[in-house]
């Protein structure tokens, strides 16, 4: 898209700002106890203000109310949406975005404000406009625009009961991973698979068998980790290995908070551990509160299955008495 084309496109979308999506429309049904009961049962909300008439009559309000989060429910179109939504300004805006490649859609924020509660037999009237459209943004999903609808709710007396702002990102989808296959069980993510090349496959294979090995130079006996073909001391390429007892000491540590990586359990402490044999290994400290981990802490490792596919050494406080 040239700069001129982009300007023309942005003029076209910005012309939607302020346009009405739906004129003030009374809900097909008044606020009613049947829909409130169904909602509270499913949400698991036992608030007596919604469903306990006897309590509500004696409460400050003097009557029951509808759950405030139902404000948008009363004006919903209904089952007809299964076969498509009616044409309106929002649908026109969406199809304009789609035509220019912004086919991705993601609801990002929804904010409701409540000014007045409603009770059974009230009627909720809703109107909606397109309130604003952002500049073109670069997002994690791809380049796109945020647009926000503003819905205003009034009751049958014309009193304003609340508003809803709903923000949607329309974006040009970037290459996404293939859709997961339809399976009956949810796939639990696993850790990133270990890279198994010519020089380190043997180490991971031993780990799968429950052992942590340390490479040893056959010529000068120097230990080294991670695995590599040549001794850094004497340049010999002859080597064998010894098995670590996994007695270690924490040299350095950090706690990972954000972003949470799929497949890892949190809290997640990563540490550099000096093994009794003298080499260092990066691993996790588990089995204690993250705040208890400290430099100099004595730890004991154990090779464990950390997810469906992965065996890894995990280090526990030595004081816990765990055995490798």
């Amino acid at each position, binding site marked *: 898209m040239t700069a001129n084309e982009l300007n023309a496109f942005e003029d076209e979308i910005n012309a939607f700002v302020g346009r009405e999506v739906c004129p003030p429309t009374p809900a097909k049904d008044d606020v009613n106890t049947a829909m409130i009961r*169904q909602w509270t049962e*499913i949400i698991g*909300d036992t*608030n*007596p203000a919604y469903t306990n008439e006897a309590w509500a009559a004696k409460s*400050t309000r003097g009557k029951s109310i509808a759950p405030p989060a139902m404000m*948008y429910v009363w004006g919903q179109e209904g089952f007809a949406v299964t076969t498509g939504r009616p044409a309106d300004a929002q649908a026109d805006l969406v199809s304009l975005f789609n035509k220019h490649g912004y086919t991705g859609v993601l609801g990002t924020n*929804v904010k409701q404000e409540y000014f007045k509660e409603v009770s059974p037999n009230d009627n909720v009237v809703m109107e909606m406009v397109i309130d604003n459209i952002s500049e073109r943004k670069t997002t994690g999903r791809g380049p796109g625009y945020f647009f926000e609808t503003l819905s205003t709710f009034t009751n049958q007396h014309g009193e304003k009961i609340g508003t809803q702002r709903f923000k949607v990102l329309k974006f040009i989808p970037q290459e996404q991973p293939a859709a997961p296959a*339809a399976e009956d069980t949810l796939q639990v993510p696993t850790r990133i698979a270990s890279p198994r090349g010519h020089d380190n496959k043997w180490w991971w294979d031993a780990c799968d068998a429950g052992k942590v090995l340390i490479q040893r130079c056959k010529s000068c006996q120097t230990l080294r980790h991670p695995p590599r073909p040549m001794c850094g001391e004497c340049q010999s390429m002859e080597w064998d290995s010894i098995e670590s007892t996994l007695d270690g000491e924490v040299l350095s540590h950090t706690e990972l908070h954000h972003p949470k990586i799929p497949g890892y359990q949190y809290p997640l402490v990563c540490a550099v551990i000096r093994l009794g044999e003298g080499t260092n290994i990066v691993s996790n400290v588990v089995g204690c509160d993250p705040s208890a981990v400290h430099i100099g802490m004595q730890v004991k490792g154990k090779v464990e299955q950390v997810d469906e596919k992965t065996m890894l050494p995990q280090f526990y406080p030595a004081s816990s008495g765990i055995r490798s």
Partner: protein
Amino acid sequence: MSDHKTLGCAEISVGDKLPSLDIDITTGLVVCGALATRDFEPVHHDKTSAVATGLPDVFMNILTSQGLMTRFATDWSGPEAVVKSLDLRLGAPNVPGMVMTMTGAVTAVDPGTGVVEVEVLGENNIWGMHMQGSVELALPKEA
């Protein structure tokens, strides 16, 4: 909430934690939540439609998430609390088989108006943050 007690604004301080709440995300909750909020978008009740969008199964609609967030806040505050606002940032979908844990803490107390603000996080055990935001509640000044 069997005793239907309502917290008074005077008893609340910034930093107070709300009791955490675990929600089992079942197909029943996703589908019935969508229908109870009159949200008949096929992705919330028809697995084939949901899979076509790249997700493994039907997923929770926003109105159900909004409902769970207000429930979480008023379970703690008690029934005389008046919900003033509900502000959600949306994250990863809630899909059957997951468990969403809701946690929250008080971030503001205005003794003049009795309005308290509670920050809420709903995180599922597979994909992390499902929703994050705040609820404002007007409380009686005294319990």
